[in-house]
């Protein structure tokens, strides 16, 4: 009974509809009540209805607890839902994501057309290129540096890459060499800005006077407080230590740089 009412209440209802329902249930509705008031009235009714219902403890085991045969006959589990998800969306896509100052991650997805192109006989080699285009308008040839790795783009779907410069802006590209040795780009990634890992070398300092609404620019005076930096491998975010017993043991073992 209350379940139906709860469902019904989920809709966008007019005050008239709400009031009519409340009256139907024998609740006292006053003229000056707002829509929210009537809603609350009905919600309280549901709550009371729930409390007065005899308790029927259904047995349920969640995903993390081992399923055990229950002797409880009243068990009514919702039917198991199919949660099979696709492993590709058949779209051409190369995505770059920063992991930390030294490591970046790529994943890609391919359309059927490009997947079959890659299999074709006039391709001699498929590569993942990474361009360092920090602070430049990239035109395809003017990168500061270009890195290249031969990869099996159909066999694997992602790649962890160790990159040389923290704070740099990298762009990924999947391309191939044809039988004549010509390089042909296929997919380009988003721009990936790597985190920095050292204090700024800037020689200026900017300040804002909030009372006078004035900006002040002056030569940098450096940091007054001594800083003890932590290095990768140590446990930062000590909080996580308490969230879980084995946090902090995360290592680079999985970031092999060798794809899967």
């Amino acid at each position, binding site marked *: 009974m209350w379940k139906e009412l709860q469902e019904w209440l989920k809709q966008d209802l007019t005050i008239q509809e709400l009031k009519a329902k409340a009256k139907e249930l024998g609740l006292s509705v006053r003229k000056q009540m707002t829509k929210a008031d009537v809603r609350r009235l009905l919600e309280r009714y549901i709550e009371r209805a729930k409390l007065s219902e005899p308790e029927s403890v259904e047995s*349920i085991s969640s*995903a993390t607890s081992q399923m055990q045969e229950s002797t409880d006959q009243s068990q009514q589990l919702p039917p198991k839902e199919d949660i099979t998800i696709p492993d590709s969306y058949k779209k051409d896509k190369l995505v770059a994501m920063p992991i930390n100052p030294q490591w970046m991650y790529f994943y890609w997805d391919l359309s059927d057309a490009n997947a079959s192109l890659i299999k074709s006989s006039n391709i001699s080699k498929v590569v993942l290129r990474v361009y360092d285009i920090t602070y430049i308008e990239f035109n395809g040839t003017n990168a500061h540096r270009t890195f290249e790795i031969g990869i099996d783009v159909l066999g694997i779907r992602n790649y962890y890459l160790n990159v040389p410069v923290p704070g740099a802006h990298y762009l990924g590209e999947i391309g191939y060499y044809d039988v004549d040795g010509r390089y042909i780009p296929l997919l380009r990634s988003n721009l990936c800005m790597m985190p920095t890992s050292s204090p700024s070398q800037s020689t200026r300092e900017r300040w804002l006077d909030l009372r006078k609404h004035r900006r002040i620019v002056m030569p940098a005076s450096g940091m*007054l407080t001594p800083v003890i930096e932590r290095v990768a491998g140590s446990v930062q975010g000590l909080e996580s230590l308490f969230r879980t017993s084995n946090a902090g043991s995360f290592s680079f073992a999985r970031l092999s740089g060798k794809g899967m």
Partner: protein
Amino acid sequence: MPRGQIMLVLHAHLPYVHHPEYTFFLEEQWLFEAITETYIPILRMFRNLEKDKVPAKLTMSITPPLMEMLANTDLQYKYEKRLEKLIELSKKEVQRTERENPTKHKMAQYYLSEFEDTLYIFKDVYQRNILNGFKEYMSKGYIDIITCNATHGYLPFMEQYPQAIRAQLEQAVKTYERHMGVKPRGIWLAECAYFPGLDKYLAEYSLEYFFVDSHGLWYADERPKYGVYRPVITPNNVFAFARDPESSEQVWSAQIGYPGDSRYREFYRDIGFDREYDYIRPYIDPSGVRTNTGIKYHKITSKETPLDGKDFYDVDDANGVAHEHARDFLRKKESQVEYLLNIFEGLEPIVVAPFDAELFGHWWYEGPLFLEYFMREAANSQKLRVVRACDVADWIEKVQILTPAASSWGANGYNEVWLNGTNDWIYLHLHEMVERMTDMAKRYVEEKDPLKVRVLNQMVRELLLAQSSDWAFIMTTRTSVDYAVNRTKTHIKRFLDLYDMLNSGNIDVGELQRLEYVDDIFPDADYKMYLKI
């Protein structure tokens, strides 16, 4: 005379776990344990401090999913039932321990009265919605409650989708306003994760301040003159506070931290595991799997002591220790600010100490008591003043302009907890969902058919729920992995099904209704958020 300032920040968050189709669900206990052990004890602290007229200042983020769960009548009802069972068990324990051991017996009586008081606060004082309590102490000036992005999504991984970031922020602001009655002033970014440029979006939603980890300022685009001990302002006029590494170390370090004291309560000894099966059966997971009950009779004793060799816990002893630790922490903070005042030539340093709220009480049982003692002691300090983030935002007159560096408070300080071999597979789907959501928002921008609008808005809920950083985190830590994997896949699948329904024009109303019922977060979700590219 200038005094140092300290800002304690508690980040209260749990992923949205509500399974209305089940009367008992193991993962819903996360919320129930946190209410009993953390959230209500924090409210109790404010009640005690108010009674004694002690001024206290705390900054606390209550995330949108947590607000939604705390205000959910079905979860409130389940929690009340759970607490009633616990009281029933405590009564049995009081009788039983009388024959066992005097310290145990004393603790059984203590638990009974604690749980009864908890029920009283929950039901009678705050009418089952403890957000009423937090609202009360916000309006009385004790807490600055800030928001967090909608489902604790990891924003650096949405960088290429401004509309996804905006949806996380817009839903956050809306949800906060719906529950608290006012707009939020500040935000805790999920996992403290920031990337340069994010401040622009925060400014769009009138958020005045956020928090970064220490290296967010250390490695900023210009050197922060006062290190992490003064907030900065970004080029888009949002204040950024940075975490003081010393405070976290003092409280949490495995070697020198307070929670490891031998006289504190041992987390891993619970009667849910210790009592004989037939006796405890009605108070654990109905499937028969043993779970924590919250009744624990042992103290840490020493780190080397095996679990079965622990001594009995006495709450009065632990109480004294918490007081001692609070005094010690205050002394350390006083000497820290004294040192900083000196090198800052009289400018007041602001020490920011953020923690996961659930560490206080849930993990460190005496944590809320420690906080209370700290507030009491600090109220009399000549060297230190406790402040909230909003106080600093109101007072500060001159501030350095900086763009903080990309950073998070996760292990090693960057993104690797949320992107590694255990969880990298999720991003193909999360990004695809954002793209499809955006396409649909554009296609149905003028949609009038209420049924289609419902499908679109339910797609928003599935997308936002899939984006919770908690799932990736859990996969990394390898605890409750199945649940996290299933939740991620479930929301992806439900989203794709809804997408197909809309595309084919074949809307299964029954299925839509079911999804609205099982994924019932954000009644005000609006697909048009994804038009904001």
